[in-house]
């Protein structure tokens, strides 16, 4: 007994494994990596004159390697759709933390509006974010690093609040509580607020204002302040 044409088509169709779903940024990274590999091989083949030409062509990338220029090109210029429900922020470039100029890049996007706790400097905030990025894989958007700098600054104020609370220093407690209330409006925190980050920040501010030691320590643990070298006991 044989099957008919329609039955054959049905079985062929049913046996087709679906296309795997892969994030556009992963495909964009691969497109850039393979383009670079193809260029490199060709460069070896045709010699030193071509090397100069290739470097000139790639000049835009060479000026700012932390900006993953090729990936941004594929994501932005090619109009690749990004699914809803992601935390990808429009117009924020993708950045490679492994690039040699990454520390300078983070410094260049430092949010000047940050008000830092006593004992903290701009350089320390940048250093904390760059140090944490060294332990991560893959690309992140620039706004993600601004967000991290806002978190580091918040962690600094939370640690200051705990230290003041331990010493029962009401003046410092008040200053720290006011500073933590200001963090609710910091723009990167709000921009990446896909899952209620500002609600968490608001709860911290309210807890600090009410003298709630547990609210402050649990916020520090939840935001992984220790990953930036800022411990609960600091």
């Amino acid at each position, binding site marked *: 007994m044989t099957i008919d044409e329609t039955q054959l088509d049905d079985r062929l169709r049913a046996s087709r494994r679906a296309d795997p779903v892969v994030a556009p940024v992963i495909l964009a990274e*691969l497109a850039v990596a393979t383009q670079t590999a193809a260029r490199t091989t060709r460069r070896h083949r045709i010699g030193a004159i071509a090397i100069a030409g290739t470097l000139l062509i790639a000049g835009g990338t060479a000026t700012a390697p932390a900006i993953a220029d090729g990936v941004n090109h594929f994501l932005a210029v090619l109009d690749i759709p990004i699914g809803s429900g992601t935390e990808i922020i429009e117009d924020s470039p993708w950045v490679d933390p492994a690039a040699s100029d990454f520390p300078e890049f983070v410094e260049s996007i430092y949010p000047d509006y940050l008000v830092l706790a006593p004992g903290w400097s701009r350089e320390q905030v940048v250093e904390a974010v760059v140090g944490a990025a060294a332990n991560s894989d893959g690309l992140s958007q620039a706004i993600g690093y601004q967000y991290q700098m806002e978190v580091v600054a918040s962690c600094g104020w939370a640690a200051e609040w705990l230290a003041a609370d331990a010493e029962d220093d009401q003046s410092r407690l008040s200053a720290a509580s006011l500073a933590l209330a200001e963090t609710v409006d910091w723009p990167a925190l709000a921009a990446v607020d896909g899952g209620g980050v500002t609600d968490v920040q608001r709860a911290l501010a309210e807890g600090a204002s009410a003298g709630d030691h547990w609210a402050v320590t649990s916020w520090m643990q939840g935001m992984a302040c220790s990953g930036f070298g800022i411990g609960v006991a600091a």
Partner: protein
Amino acid sequence: MLRLRNRGRGVTPLESALPELMPDLLGFFVRRLGHPEDAADALSETLIVLWRKQRGLPEGEDLRRYAFGVARKVLLAAQRGRLRQRDLADALHDALVDVAVDSAPDHDLQKALAALPARDRELVLLVAWEGFGVAEAGAVLGLRPDAARARYSRARSRLRSKL
């Protein structure tokens, strides 16, 4: 659905095609290679060939057909264990770890397909799985349209007789 905007840098035909072409090619390899990691490497190798040839590439549907022709050759190399490992696709490897295996494979169909000559089998699958017309699939495999149609018809008859 969020769409990122065009920021003005020139776009080549290959670049324009890649957003649709890459998932298509990845699916092609995933359906034919046992391990998803191999599919990632095969896609990587295919893209390198396309980048190298991009100045002479056709456009539109012809580009898709050409790309699958390259992919077919890469597939043959992969099936012979001759795929070059370049470590370019690590992130894609990770992304493919959870790709589901076929939970209820049609063993009889697999057996019948395996009994076909390799080029006839691929002809049938390019039409059934990748959405090519018979003549287009034939072009991917280097067959003239009339030869592709004859082979396709014969392959389907053989499949039907075995199922």
